[in-house]
């Protein structure tokens, strides 16, 4: 069985914006859409103090955390130097205007991290 699970249409995510995906366990996952229509998915928690990255400003292939302005690379979840840290990354597939995430990852990745209020 394919692990890819349908999440939403590409157009459900604003350009240079983000949406949140709730999960059965663990913090939500943020999915981002860049100006060139690439889609990325990260755990919705900044490695710094757990800020919701889905609420940040998206630019290039990065997002600025809304709490303390750390810049996180969308492709690998890493904080831009000189800050250090990394947030969990989720695989994304975009096919014919539909966005898919990996069901196994959603069910298991970074689920034991304490949830903060959305």
């Amino acid at each position, binding site marked *: 069985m394919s692990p890819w699970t349908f999440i939403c249409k590409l157009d459900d995510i*604003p350009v240079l914006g983000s*949406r*949140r995906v709730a*999960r059965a366990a663990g913090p939500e996952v943020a999915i981002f859409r860049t*100006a060139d229509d690439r889609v990325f998915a990260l755990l919705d928690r900044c490695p710094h103090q757990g800020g*919701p990255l889905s609420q940040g*400003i998206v*630019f290039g292939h990065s997002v*600025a955390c809304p709490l303390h302005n750390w810049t996180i690379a969308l492709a690998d979840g890493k904080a831009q130097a000189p800050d250090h840290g990394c947030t969990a990354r989720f695989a994304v597939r975009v096919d014919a205007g539909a966005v898919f995430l990996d069901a196994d990852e959603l069910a298991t990745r970074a689920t034991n991290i304490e949830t903060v209020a959305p």
Partner: protein
Amino acid sequence: MKKLRLVMVGNGMAGVRTLEELLKIAPDLYDVTIFGAEPHPNYNRILLSPVLAGEQTVDQIVLNPLSWYAEHGITLHLGQKVVAIDRTRRVVTAQDGNGGPGGQIQAEYDRLLIATGSNPFILPVPGKTLQGVIAYRDIADTQTMIDAATRYRHAVVIGGGLLGLEAANGLAKRGMHVTVVHIMPWLMERQLDDVAGKLLQKSLEERGLKFLIGAQTESLLGHDSGPDAGRVRAVRFLDGTEVPADLVVMAAGIRPNTDLALKIGLHCANEGRGGIVVTDTLQTVTDPRIYAVGECAAHRGIAYGLVAPLFEQGKVCATHLAQFGIGRYTGSQTSTKLKVTGIDLFSAGNFSGGAGTEEIVLSDPYAGVYKKLVIRDDKLIGACLYGDTVDGSWYFKLLRDGRSISDIRDKLMFGESNIGDVGHEGHGKAAAMADSDEVCGCNGVNKGAICKAIKDKGLFTLEEVRKQTKASASCGSCTGLVEQLLMFTAGGDYSKAPARKAMCGCTDVSHQEAREGIRKDKLLTIDSVYRTMGWRTPNGCASCRPAINYYLLSSWPKEAKDDPQSRYINERSHANIQKDGSYSVIPRMWGGETTADELRRIADAVDKYKIPTVKVTGGQRIDLLGVKKEDLVNVWKDIGMPSGHAYAKALRTVKTCVGSEWCRFGTQDSTQMGKDLERALWRMYAPHKVKLAVSGCPRNCAEAGIKDVGVIGVDSGWEIYVAGNGGIKTEVAQFFCKLKTPEEVLEYSGAFLQLYREEGWYLERTVHYVNRVGLDVVKKKILEDHEGRKALWARLQFSLDGEPDPWFDFDKASVDTRQFTAVANAGVPS
């Protein structure tokens, strides 16, 4: 493709800094080869004085260890002096510095960077080649001095400038008897006026240094025989007197090192004494393949000897080497600080005054404090501080910014802390602070952490310290302290000096240029701004995009379209994000008045949505904290009150006292005035938040004195105060005008705020805006130009007319309501 070849002659601070900048933006463009005459990797030359004084070691001042060169694949030839350059074949030839059998090394180049620095000026007197006669320029000289101090007794330093005094101090600390010979009438005459120069001399004399002021060296005398034959033994002066000397340090100035440049026919100023002539792109005027930076370069007739300008040159040069072709170096202003522990001295700009200038002087010779500020046309143009240099960096900033000081003139001499400052326990002297003392109250960074980062990571600029440590990166009130720490720790002055500052790393365009461009070319979208003005990034960053979005909306109301994705989250969700990711909701209460109905609805919403905290704000409103994002829309609906915009760079609150309706002292109906102002101005976005207050009598219970616009009722009308704020730096609002009627209060306040909306830079509060352009200019536009004022007021009303309440009119306010729900529930049982 084959890489281009870059050869650098000189391995000092300016050159290596240029390379670092280049590697940041184009890491793979060049194969780099460096020739350095000294046998050391790049080190911090400014810190030779602390090494000489025994306060630091040579290892501690190395900036780029050998491993750095290896890591970046740089071919490094140390101890190799470049002897020839063939500009036609583009080949550099170097000779082993020790004349050893190593022979010659050659390297071909596509681009050549000359960073040969400067040579000390050696007085042309008989005996200058004797043993024990040295200059003070590099690690070898420093080592020679340290060695001499262990074996000899008498030292003479020729030259009482910055370098000479640091050398003299170091030698004295190592136990030598030191005499400083200075031909000019007072010490450091290029940096200090006569009073400060004499105070400095007195203080150094107390430390055991001797001075011969005005003495002219005639010759250096050597031992003719004995174990020290060929070594210097004394200095003789024109008047025939002599002083004993086992070591003579020449510190009579430096000359750009242009030997090589002259040899290969590059145009140099003043027959080589003035430096290699370069353009604003740091290219030599003679050969476009050759660049020159640092002390050897003459830019617009100036060869800089301080590190901040050299680094600015390096940055510009790097962009051109990287073939970006952006940025121009247009010159720097510089300041000076003496690195002699325990002596505080600072000077910048034109400190000697002259025709058309005014001076403010504080002189307390008993306490060893002297300060002189030189002013022309209401602007600070020079400062000379001795004994108390806490405010040096502040004065330097005022000087560089060129802002009018007329409004703070009476307090100028007493420093920045006298105009309101909080957040770091009133600390003003960085040196006096303990390592554990907190410098940055916003980010909790103490002095020790900052100094460690500066040392360990080799930081040089305020920006770098901010990035690495976050100190002064938030509110910025401790900037002065951080700059001081940079001075103490890294030496010299490292504050950047651009008169016009780029908005962010995405562009070289300044805020002012962006504003003007948007108006001139009638730009209506962020994309068109980025395209027209040559942004380097496709869609900006979290810093420039909100600014541009605001400039578009404020310049072209009703035409430019708001882009919510270019707004900070608070203005996108119309609520204030909290540390746990929840939000706060503050409904608008006109003039701070509310009703039982409103309070009942608020109480019901608090129960229904289980809102954990209810707090009364300083702006006479009620704050509901800890609202979940998905509840926001329903909370707004249930409460049924307008948005308070407490989350926005916009009109926040109009605070009022009860006024004449109830108060036995009240002279005017301040509550009604406040309500009218708030109804006229709400939904007004601005460069920063805007707060107003109206008091009904001069007792001023509404605290109108610290508001962007403060209105105070008096028996005969209303007094208007502008450009105040509480916050980081408490700024007392300045008296603006006195008016008769409430209608006038609306018009004048509105016109002032519209002017700020049209001319302010994003995130600049009214006080900073008014300080930048000058209160006089603002007064002229509002008080004297009646047509202009009415037009401003009309433009504001036009902008605000029909603006939606974002809590209710989602479409019109461009509120993307999809944000309030999750897009999907993966694996969540529904």
